[in-house]
């Protein structure tokens, strides 16, 4: 079973450099770098508290965290414009926050409250914000790909290509590249020349299954070959590199209507979901992961570069802690949806005879005879 535990093939920073090409924060304005650190810190803080709230039974169901993926998440969202559309998988808290969704309302959704971003209907896996064009986290692996592709198709009816054209970003995990919807969606995007960038967040694992064990071509960015879609791999721990790679692909999508496939090499510091102890990980692997946490690394890098000093950093971290604490308080104060709201979103267009029976109700409403 040796070969079965997570190998570190295809995760070597060296290799990532080759394929991605990280850039020193020197290239970017100080405020920008600091803002990235602020966002990454907020996500980190949010996810840690979400995990805690789950153990306190404030959050139920499945809860998947972005711990370890903060640089990738922030880099991708920095590349996306407000006018662009985003589709993600169920591991999307960080994307929602970096997309500018209200921290309190995101936490409220995890708590299943009326003020949640999806009115408490969706929970952790199904965050949505029509206004910010975050068109959903999706819990079915690969389920977001065809709709994201169709959203890009809709954009082609809105107008021609150009630097200001809207585009779609569709995020997915590495394991998702093995499902049929991946193949069908990328093929459609290619033949219809759609303005969409597919992003694979390669954290090396499905749940416990490694990329090498699951994918015939483990260099996932190469899997665009079956559609002539150009692919690129980038170091997911390098927020600027991620942003630049995503921006370039989005640019091509806008101006040339050519889809792209971006692979960000990232790391999942914890289990698949908050309830997974990740026993399948070798101790060596667990130790190695600790060294790959993007937060301390980026912090040190910024301090090194003189962009950030420890006080500012501490201040940013304190701010994040307060913001998340406030979010928890807000969520906790938000009421649960009332029983009479059960059928509120049953249909967008109401029609006669829409079923409204509660468990144990007769199939016909009392006094229906009079109505006929």
């Amino acid at each position, binding site marked *: 079973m040796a070969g079965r535990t997570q190998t570190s093939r295809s995760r070597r920073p060296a290799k990532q450099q080759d394929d991605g090409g990280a850039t020193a924060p020197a290239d970017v304005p100080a405020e920008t770098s600091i803002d990235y650190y602020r966002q990454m810190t907020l996500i980190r803080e949010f996810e840690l508290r979400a995990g805690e709230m789950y153990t306190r039974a404030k959050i139920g169901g499945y809860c998947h965290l972005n711990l370890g993926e903060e640089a990738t998440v922030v880099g991708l969202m920095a590349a996306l414009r407000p006018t662009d559309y985003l*589709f993600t998988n169920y591991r999307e808290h960080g994307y929602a926050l970096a997309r500018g969704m209200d921290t309190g309302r995101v936490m409220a959704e995890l708590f299943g409250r009326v003020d949640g*971003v999806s009115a408490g209907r969706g929970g952790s896996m*199904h965050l949505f914000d029509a206004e910010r064009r975050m068109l959903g986290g999706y819990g079915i692996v690969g389920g977001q790909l*065809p709709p994201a592709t*169709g959203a890009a198709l809709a954009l082609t009816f809105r107008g021609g290509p150009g630097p200001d054209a809207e585009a779609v970003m569709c995020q997915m995990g590495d394991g998702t590249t093995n499902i049929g919807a991946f193949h*069908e969606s990328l093929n459609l995007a290619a033949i219809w020349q759609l303005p969409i960038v597919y992003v694979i967040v390669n954290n090396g694992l499905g749940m416990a299954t490694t990329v090498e064990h699951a994918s015939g071509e483990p260099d996932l960015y190469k899997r665009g070959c079956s559609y002539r879609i150009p692919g690129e791999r980038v170091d997911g721990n390098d927020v600027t590199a991620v942003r630049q790679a995503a921006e370039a692909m989005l640019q091509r999508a806008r101006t040339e209507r050519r889809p792209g496939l971006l692979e960000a090499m990232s790391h999942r510091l914890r289990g698949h979901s908050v309830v997974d102890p990740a026993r399948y990980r070798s101790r060596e692997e667990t130790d190695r992961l600790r060294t790959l946490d993007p937060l301390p690394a980026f912090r040190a890098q910024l301090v090194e570069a003189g962009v950030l000093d420890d006080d500012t950093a501490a201040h940013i971290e304190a701010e994040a802690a307060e913001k998340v604490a406030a979010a928890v308080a807000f969520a906790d104060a938000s009421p649960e949806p009332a029983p009479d709201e059960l059928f509120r979103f049953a249909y*967008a*267009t109401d029609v006669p005879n*829409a079923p409204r029976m509660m468990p144990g109700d007769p199939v016909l409403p009392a006094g229906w005879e009079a109505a006929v």
Partner: protein
Amino acid sequence: MPEITYRQALHDALRAEMMRDENVVLLGEEIGLFEGSYKITAGLLEEFGPERVRDTPISEEGFVGAAIGAAMLGMRPVVEIMTINFSLLAIDQIVNHAAKIYGMFGGQTPVPMVIRTPGGGGQQLAATHSQNLEVWYAHIPGLKVVAPSTPADAKAMLTAAIRDDDPVILLENLSLYNTKGEVPEGEQVATIGKAAVTVPGTDLTVVGYSRSAVIARDVARRFADQGVSIEVVDLASLRPLDRQTICASVRKTGRAVILEDDWLSYGVGAEIAATIAEGAFDYLDAPVRRVAAAEVPLPYAKSLERIALPDADALIKVINEQLDATRFAR
């Protein structure tokens, strides 16, 4: 009123809605150059061009899901799935996505799309190409499922489906495409969720939909000649289901037979029978009976296919059994 085919009625509705609303686009396999497996979209590629009449690769999950995303951005896609048998390839997008997105995201985005697909056996297409799986979709909250039986209904229901903001599955039927009927000119918009008493009667109620509603009307006429008054309820909509019209009819007639093309166990007729048994319990003179398909993968051989599928003779036989068993009550 002009007599046109069920096929023509569907075509006319598509064309009229495309002319009326530029957000209406068609997606499907071979709907353009080939003009559709069953020629519903004949001429539309020429008229509206390859953007709005879009031939897709053989990727049911991909293009049905793409229609969902396009609908989320305000388009009104009408997808053709060549037959309901192939909808299984897209069913995760239909049931886990189209049906869930409006409610699961708290009503932030409707999914105004239509899936047109024919079902039905009797064409010797064998087991994988002859199924009637509409009961699966009828079971799913978030979907609307309509099943027109006449050209007039086909036109009015397709128009209503396209203008509805929820995902609507419009069940067509291979054996109805060539049937003719009077269709009023101009715009007709049906009300989704209503059944219709298409033949009034007093002795027994026959419930059907799509092809079975056509057979039911024919059989009712034959009984009328013998002085037996059969009422026919055409469900028209499987979801929502108009239980009131069904039960009101049976409370009047006291007897009910359901004709359905799908398999007996767990088929559409099971819900109808259960509904009647509850909603008209004190009025029933005889147990509700179902006439449905034999429970086998449908064989190709004509000799076996014929006997496996329900037909007018089987319906007549069961109606007579019902009437004989309850002479007292007439």
